[in-house]
């Protein structure tokens, strides 16, 4: 498993690894299959993630693209500011809500 997925009462929490790139994005995609199928609000815990490559960003965007039309929110919690900045600069930020902490994201996701 590249991503740890925990199903909680109101949302699904997906925890990102320290690096998400071309070497593990394919495996991460497999890990996300049940999340995509559930169609529920997802909180992405990015607190321990220090690098997301272009492939990783594409994977996150696909997640949001699939879930948002189903009415689910996709929140990113605790992301390092420089990663958020990269997402913004490269146009990968527009489908996500960003929260500082996991707790905040859980509350916002309800």
């Amino acid at each position: 498993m590249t991503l740890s997925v925990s199903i909680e009462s109101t949302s699904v929490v997906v925890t990102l690894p320290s690096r998400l790139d071309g070497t593990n994005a394919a495996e991460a995609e497999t890990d996300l299959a049940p999340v995509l199928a559930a169609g529920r609000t997802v909180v992405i815990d990015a607190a321990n993630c220090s690098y997301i490559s272009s492939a990783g960003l594409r994977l996150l965007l696909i997640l949001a693209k699939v879930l948002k039309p189903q009415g689910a929110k996709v929140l990113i919690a605790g992301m390092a500011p420089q990663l958020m900045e990269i997402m913004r600069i490269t146009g990968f930020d527009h489908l996500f809500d960003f929260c500082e902490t996991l707790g905040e994201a859980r509350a916002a996701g309800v």
Partner: protein
Amino acid sequence: MFRVDGYPTHEYGDFKLRPGKPLPFGATIVAGGVNFSVFSRFATACDLVLFHRHEAEPFAIIPFPDSFRTGNVFAMTVFDLDYETIEYGYRMDGPFDPDAGHRFDRSKVLIDPYARSLSGRNVWGETPDWTTPTQFRSGIVPDDFDWQDDKPLEIPFGDLVIYEAHVRGFTRHPSSGVRHPGTYAALREKIPYLRDLGVNCLELMPVHEFDEFENSRRHPETGEMLLNYWGYGTIGFFAPKAGLAATGSLGMQVDEFKAMVADLHRNGIEIILDIVFNHTGEGNENGPTIGFRGIDNKTYYMLTPEGYYWNFSGCGNTLNCNNPMVRSMILDCLRAWVSEYHIDGFRFDLAAILGRDQFGAPMESPPLLETLAFDPILGKCKLIAEAWDAGGLYQVGSFPSWGRWAEWNGKYRDTLRDFLRGESGCVGPMAQRLAGSPDLYRWQQRDSHASVNFVTCHDGFTLHDLVSYDSKHNEANGENNADGCNDNRSWNCGEEGESIDPEVLALRHRQTRNALILLLLSQGVPMLLAGDEFAQTQHGNNNSYCHDTELSWLDWSRLPANRDLFRFVRLMIAFRRAHPVLRMPRFLDVVGHVADLRVPSLSWHGTEAWRPDFSSASRTLALLLCGERAQGGTEYIYVAANMHWEAHVFELPDLPGARWRIAVNTGIPAPEDIWPPREEPEPADPRSVLVGPRSVMVLLADRG
């Protein structure tokens, strides 16, 4: 869907392969792998060279089996490649026979002419490791940007106000106040500024991969490292320059560039790219072999009978634009920029070269230009030619257009500058320029939108310097002031360079405004040079191509000090956009009546109404435009230009039932030099106005 071609058929070492698809050219992500396709007419063999990013030595060299070649195209699909972390190049085998035009060199790893990204100069200005034999490598990029609803804006050409800028120079200066200076991302941060100014089209100087270290050298006296800062020297026509991206070190310049385009479009601003198809960054026979020279020299370059490089570009070589293969590369490239990047238009550098045949002779009906004019994907995009080249072909007014091509109107610039500095014999030519240059374009049934009007551009003086210097001061370029244009038609207003003389300064302020107002009131499409709205200076340098320093970077600290000028430009742009008669799609006629049966659409006047003075000694000209108002009814715009050193009374044309109001008077200091809508005062005398020395007044009236 099941497809049987997603599986390998061949093996080479650990690599699983399949004969590739010859089209599209370049590296394309396909089911299970990457399809590599490259054209060479004269190569006898080709290897694919694969690198891991950041590693000097390749991890694989895979020869294209002869069975993978279709015609002159080498094509191969390689399976299980991680497109994010690999880079590639080609080695070509073939004759080294310069007399016959061939310069194959099997030792060189070459970039792909169709590469969607290049690495090697990912961080601007970082000194290259010159010991690395392969300075550039090609990258693989998915074309999957989430554009949402974006598409090119298709603003009518005549409604554009173009703003020419250099990506790095726009925000590199410490005063720019952005987070990522000198990048596409920083340009996005300045979009609110562009909106405030009111321009609706951003024209970017070259963003296609070039080597800023091309011909780099230290200035012998100042020690400054001189670079190819402007970027006219493309090596990758399909790749946005990574060194201009904040995320270039991560290889994400493509996404960053697209995010910038989408954001510009969201804000109603089109984007035009300056694209340099006249030559490449490989120089002449002494230049580096980066790609084209080693892939198919004879195809890509115009060669003399002895096998040397024709130099119609002044940059060492000439791209062989009307070779059918080069033509199709150019077409593929432009199509990619429109369809993948949503680019709104192109400005073709030294475009006269695009109309030369393979031996350099100008053609009557150049197939490349015709193809671009009629291409369906380019069908709505703007095509603007710099209608001359360095080989002496000057085609302003005669560039083959098929009703599609517009031109940088060099004669507009020259005439306006001469009129501005009070040269004799300029009133007649200036009238032509104000009317959209019918003398240049009407004979071909072209309209005024064929003319992109400008008084300054990246090449030459800034506007501040145009009114502050009689001659160029290019010593910093390290060529004893020999480089750069001598035909500047500039005037320093009494003192060379910076001045503290209040009279000199007042005159410069006026001349600056006079130039801008005539530009923004002319029929045709106006183009402004970035920074002119806050008096950017290059200290008299009219050819700053090599300076990656404060000499070239926009100094935003000049903005507060020149707020009045900024306001003037902003209000003038708004004025142009508010009055349709200033941007008519057809030439206005001195005998035509559109809105008012008694007043022609366009009429010329002098100090006496209805009596223009086109004599050689005249320096006064007035223009009356009459047309339909945006909100209905009829409007009249009267422009009195007095480029004489004495004041003159201009009799106003009598328009029964309409009252004149003063919109602009450059003879009066700010803020009364220009009035916002509905605040315009009426002239003291409704029959005439006194126009000060070297001043322009604009009055308007309406009816109904």
